[in-house]
């Protein structure tokens, strides 16, 4: 849903995306302990698998991205985890491309980081599954909303001819936002009931 293929964006947008995500990547990798690599990889794999799940919304169906949840669970480690997932998708499924890896990573990782900054504290403090559902829904919703805005911004900055399309394209994110909100909320509520300690992993391990 958030894959922009090669050939669409202009060189300055591609370069900016690459530079910004490279910066975030370097910082994230420096913070990532070797000890946390199995955990980060497990979650990266989980999100890769989740992106294969088809969720029907009305007449259409969407593939989940779950970048908000990824930010909550991984924090900064979401940046390399998303990059790895996007690289695998490009190589094995032909989604996206190579030159767009930077900007595509940024479009997903920036909302993930923002969700982590905004909602992580509240989620760690909250212990009621019902409230966690709503916090999760907010996370999922804002993660995708922001990704949609960033994708359209990347398009609009690439050339004025994309602006009408970008405006309409924003609408196609609405079903995804709803599905992500519902599913992210349910996941958080579920984890709180089944394994509450896993939700607050980052309080125990360093991050």
């Amino acid at each position, binding site marked *: 849903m958030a894959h922009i293929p090669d050939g669409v964006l202009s060189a300055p947008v591609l370069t900016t995306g690459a530079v910004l995500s490279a910066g975030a990547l370097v910082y994230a990798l420096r913070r990532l302990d070797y000890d946390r690599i199995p955990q980060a990889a497990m979650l990266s794999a989980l999100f890769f698998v989740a992106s294969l799940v088809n969720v029907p919304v009305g007449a259409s169906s969407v593939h989940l991205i779950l970048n908000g949840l990824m930010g909550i669970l991984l924090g900064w480690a979401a940046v390399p985890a998303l990059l790895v997932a996007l690289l695998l998708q490009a190589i094995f499924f032909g989604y996206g491309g190579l030159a767009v890896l930077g900007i595509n990573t940024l479009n997903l990782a920036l909302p993930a980081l923002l969700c982590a900054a905004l909602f992580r504290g509240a989620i760690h403090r909250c212990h009621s599954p019902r409230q966690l559902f709503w916090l999760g829904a907010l996370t999922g919703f804002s993660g995708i909303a922001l990704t949609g805005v960033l994708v359209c911004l990347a398009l609009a900055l690439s050339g004025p001819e994309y602006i009408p399309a970008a405006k309409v394209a924003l609408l196609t994110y609405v079903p995804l936002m709803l599905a992500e909100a519902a*599913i992210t909320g349910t996941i958080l509520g579920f984890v709180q009931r089944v394994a509450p300690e896993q939700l607050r992993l980052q309080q125990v391990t360093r991050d």
Partner: protein
Amino acid sequence: MSSLPLLAPLATSSFLNTLDPRLRVLLCLAWTGSCLSLERLSLQALAALAALGVALLLGLSPRALLRRLVVMEGFMLLVLLLLPFSMPGNPVFTLGNLEATDAGFARALGILFQAHGVIFMVLILLGTLEVVTLGHALARLGVPDKLVHLLLFTVRYVQVLYEEHLRLRQAMRARAFVPGTNRHSWNSLGWLLGMLLVRSLERASRIHEAMKCRGFHGRFYLLDDGAWGRHDTLIALAAVPLVLVLPLLESVL
């Protein structure tokens, strides 16, 4: 219950496998740069054709290629469809009060050609590599080792989790679950993913303990020597004009 490996490399001729994986990564990057620098529609089409030709010549099956044509998601399709109407140029036809222009069509076609030119080359040069080999090649090219570790671990776990996911889905199907747009479906899918999440985190901590137990101290050893042969140098030299010819044509024309 066994399943097809999700991240299996595509089958190819044996010639490609004699090349050093680093060379394949570098060629792919060079081709991407060259293909994306083209501005003439005819050259963009030529690049897409060339990439297709190389992919077929090196033994990628047309079926595998067809299945992986650039997946235009709804949203990108929309962008391409609206492009002819939003670019200034000579009108080709009008739809209501919207004008489709030749420049717009050229741009939309150009995007299709460039996207496929790149992705065909990615599929033949990188998609045919074992991911482990690719990881090692990236490490030798100077990609940070933590990122390479993350890639290698992720590839391993994707298969594990995918099989687990299929098992859970089968259990849901056995109980006659058909996804729809309703609370029940969203709950069920959320619980499915939540279950996967809990299990995967538990598995990650087991793996971490097992690694510690074996004395892991933050380093994987790359055991293959990854020798760069004379053969690779020759191919690299032969590839230089191939990569450069299209951008050169562009500047000459």
